[in-house]
């Protein structure tokens, strides 16, 4: 199978600093791929190289079989780009803009259908400069989709949205995924990546530090389960039954048991508690969250560099 996006050992320097270093990944057709990382990690630089806005200093990049640096019209006809904070001609109306941008493509989507998809039908005759922030982002999405692209780039699609607008945007993006489009998403929100992506690459300080499905990212699926509870007064961890393949620690926040055999260990503890008629207050079992993993991964990357966080644009 040919990849929709194939990036090998991508490198980009600004001055004497590597903004992107040895970045490699592939995206399959129909996949929603998310580049997740803090601001300044190299997300936008990587994306803009894939979009043909910037030129790589090293490595190879293929997007839909094209070299984006070649700046071919045929390449641009097959992709759609939704950029952050990119304006439109302010004196034209929503429908005029969608029609105008549609003319640039060989097979534009019908204006009405598109306005319906992004929920701007009622605003079709309004001037672009009268739109609210959320409406502008929906217009951005419409203009990204107007050429009926095979591959859609979404750069931080919900930055600045309130929670309900984010939910609505996610629903729209999921609808797009259902159309079978390949989507390349960048975000610094973990929940957004988890919600939308088939696969996530975490980028920090210009390098990819982890890659996988939201469930397996950073070894989350095989990481130790954490069991927490409080023992009643008079009992100590020494009173617990023997727990194979587990580490037990006690602190002022109660007892923490970590084990890769989460189910078995939980069973032993709860069985012991029921038999001894012991009440275990605040009993909880959890896997490390994607957020825990993300923070650990990006913190590691910062620890290995002496540059201040966010110094790379």
């Amino acid at each position: 199978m040919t990849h929709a996006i194939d990036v090998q050992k991508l490198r980009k320097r600004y001055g004497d600093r590597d903004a992107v270093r040895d970045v490699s990944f592939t995206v399959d057709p129909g996949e929603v791929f998310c580049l997740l990382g803090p601001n300044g990690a190299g997300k936008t630089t990587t994306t803009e190289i894939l979009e043909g806005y910037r030129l790589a200093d090293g490595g190879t990049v293929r997007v839909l079989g094209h070299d984006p640096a070649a700046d071919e019209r045929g390449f641009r006809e097959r992709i759609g780009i939704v950029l952050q904070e990119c304006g439109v001609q302010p004196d034209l109306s929503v429908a005029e803009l969608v029609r105008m941008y549609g003319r640039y493509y060989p097979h534009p989507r019908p204006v009405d259908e598109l306005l319906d998809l992004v929920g701007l039908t009622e605003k079709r005759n309004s001037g672009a400069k009268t739109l609210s922030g959320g409406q502008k982002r929906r217009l951005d999405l419409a203009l990204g989709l107007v050429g009926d692209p095979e591959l859609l780039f979404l750069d931080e699609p919900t930055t600045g949205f309130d929670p309900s607008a984010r939910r609505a945007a996610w629903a729209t993006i999921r609808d797009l995924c259902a159309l079978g489009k390949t989507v390349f998403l960048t975000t610094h929100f973990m929940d957004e990546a988890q919600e939308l992506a088939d696969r996530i690459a975490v980028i920090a300080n210009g390098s990819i530090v982890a890659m996988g499905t939201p469930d397996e990212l950073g070894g989350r699926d095989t990481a130790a389960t954490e069991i927490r509870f409080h023992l009643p007064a008079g009992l100590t961890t020494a009173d617990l039954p023997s727990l194979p393949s587990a580490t037990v620690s006690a602190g002022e926040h109660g007892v923490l048991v970590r084990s890769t055999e989460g189910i078995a260990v939980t069973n032993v503890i709860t069985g012991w508690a029921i038999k001894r008629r012991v009440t275990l207050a605040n009993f909880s079992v959890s896997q490390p969250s994607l957020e825990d993993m993300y923070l650990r991964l990006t913190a590691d990357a910062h620890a290995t560099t002496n540059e201040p966080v966010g110094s790379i644009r």
Partner: protein
Amino acid sequence: MTEFSLIVNQVVEEQRSFWRNRTRAVFSFVMPVAFLVLLGAANRNDHIHGGTRYVAFLVPGMLAWGIISTTFNNLAVSGAVLRDTGVLKRLRGTPLPQWVWLTARLASSVLSTAAMVVVVLIVGRVAYGVTVPLHTAGALIAGIAAGTVCFSALGMGIVRIIPNADAAPAVTAGVTLPLLFISGVFSPTTGLPAWLDHLAKFFPIRPLSDLVHVGFGAHLPTGSSLGSEYLTLAIWTFVGVRMLRRFLRRETVAA
């Protein structure tokens, strides 16, 4: 869609944007016409050196200013806005060929200029009885065409050195206003000291103004040939195109 219809459609959108933006339409289009009316009314019966009526000087002067205004000022200000608001970056991400976009910008600026020329000619004739002699009509059209191309190129190119959209009107006024006063637009150049006269001729406003005055039947005050006027405009057109090429380089637009 063929390239030609793409250009035509793009010109329509450019024209829509131009006329809907009242500030821009007023400043670049209405101002020269308004000055023609005001200055003409105030100095209606005056005569300039050589016995010519002032209004016969003023009509070509305002026409020259109008060309600069509808091309240079308009393209520079709107270009800076399109860059700063990210529209250029957005367009760069679409299949619209850059040359189609540039051609449409130029064609739209030619249309606005043509409309302004017609209005100035009508006002000049109706209000002041100033007409274009038949034997110089060709020279007038050639001069207007050369000026339109030169100041369109400069207007699109100067965006490169305009730091931000807010500064654009100040930059365009700053580079044009001093030159307008020494280029035979508001007042004749006959009284200029020789050094100022020579200085003015290095810049493109003076040659355009001289060509338009000649197009209305005036004789060049210093008796220079029209060749040097066209040469100066050609050199500045080249400067504009060079600045434009550098401005449109990929990473400049992306940044």
